[in-house]
């Protein structure tokens, strides 16, 4: 328990400084949504149509930022040895890392998503579903992204390799989330896709830590 708290505190601390930190993620997100009207032209109709979906895709991409050093740093400086020999199994360590990453990186994004969508012209009624989807989705992204990062630890390449590994695996959550947002925007019931998204995320919560731990052990061996 004590150990868990200590680990969590450390991971939160590291997540703040990692990569661009939340600010870069948010900034990137803001830049994307701010840039889109330019690319689309001010014609708000076209914009409104894609607002929700685009803010959702942007969130998926933004959550890839700063994933690279999730495990790589600890591996390089030997801290991963330490983490592997602690009282908690590596699976738990990996899970805590992802949760911290999510709290620091994903939750702010989730909070920003509705604003982005609305500023792009989505109906303000779409805010709650977008928030829900974004919160769930960013957790899923953090977990799967963490798996990619853990696999890349043993590799000579990071960055795009992680993205390439992770993005295809993200197809289901992106679909479910996009559908929920679209349904909400269209005033249709959005609970079904949200339920799908929740189920997928739950599965990820169960399985991703196993994969991450296995990948780390592999890198350490």
């Amino acid at each position, binding site marked *: 328990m004590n150990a868990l708290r200590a680990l969590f505190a450390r991971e939160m601390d590291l997540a703040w400084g990692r990569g661009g930190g939340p600010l870069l993620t948010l900034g990137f997100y803001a830049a994307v949504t701010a840039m889109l009207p330019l690319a689309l032209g001010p014609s708000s109709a076209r914009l409104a149509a894609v607002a929700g979906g685009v803010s959702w895709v942007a969130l998926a991409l933004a959550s890839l930022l700063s994933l690279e050093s999730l495990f790589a740093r600890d591996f390089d400086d030997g801290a991963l040895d330490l983490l592997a020999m602690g009282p908690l199994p590596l699976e738990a360590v990996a899970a805590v890392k992802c949760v911290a990453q999510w709290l620091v990186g994903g939750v702010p994004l989730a909070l920003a998503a509705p604003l982005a969508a609305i500023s792009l012209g989505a109906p303000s009624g779409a805010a709650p579903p977008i928030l829900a989807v974004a919160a769930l989705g960013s957790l899923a992204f953090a977990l799967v992204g963490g*798996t990619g990062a853990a*696999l*890349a630890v*043993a*590799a*000579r*390449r990071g960055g795009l*390799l992680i993205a*390439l*590994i992770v*993005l*295809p*695996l993200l*197809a*289901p959550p992106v*679909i*479910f989330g*996009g*559908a929920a947002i679209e349904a909400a925007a269209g005033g249709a019931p959005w609970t079904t896709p949200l339920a*799908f998204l929740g189920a*997928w995320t739950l599965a990820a919560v169960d*399985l991703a830590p196993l*994969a991450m731990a*296995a*990948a780390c052990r*592999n*890198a350490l*061996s």
Partner: protein
Amino acid sequence: MIAALANPHRFMGFSRVAAPTLGLAAAGLIGGGLALGLAAPPDYQQGETVKIMFVHVPAAWTAMLAYGAMGAASFFFLVFRHGLADSAAKAAAPLGATFTLLALITGSLWGRPMWGAWWVWDARLTSVLVLFLLFVGYMALRASIDDEAKAGRAGAILALVGLINLPIIKFSVDWWNTLHQGESILRAGGPLLAPVYLVPLLLTGAGYCAAFGALWMIRTRAEVWRRRAAGLALAAAL
């Protein structure tokens, strides 16, 4: 069966015979299938383009088979640590990627006349594209780890994660497609395919699978030899 083949020597013995046999079978099946298929009358709906089906659909089927094979091999490697299983998984990836690519290309060559577009975001097309990306990711990951054992385990983990996710991807993509009642008219044929097309299709399909089997075995054999050679070279160096 697999347990028996896990032993490299037994596998080498078995595949030395099995691979050529499968290869010949593949040649026969594909040749026969195409002969029948090309002779078949043009489809009232699709005209002559239906001939593409005989190279397109089998490619798509085989692509999925290949991923299944890769995933299964990865599973055996992770659980039972059979080095041979790793060689097999490694060997399956480029073949699977090629078949997937063939499905994509022939598919869009079919789509152009049928839909007037090289590509539409139809469920099957999309899931095949995702399948292709999974293969590419697997190969990219392996390629960037030069320690054979580590590359194997990392790849196996990824392949398994993908294997678990694959049905979900297929489901989600189909569901997504029905949401948007996609613009595809991929209904052509399908289950209610006239025997004139169905028979050759099944023949070529079987042929493609056999061809994959043969190539897979040979590639695995090559990998086994490569590792033996690497080991010997290192032993000589020390």
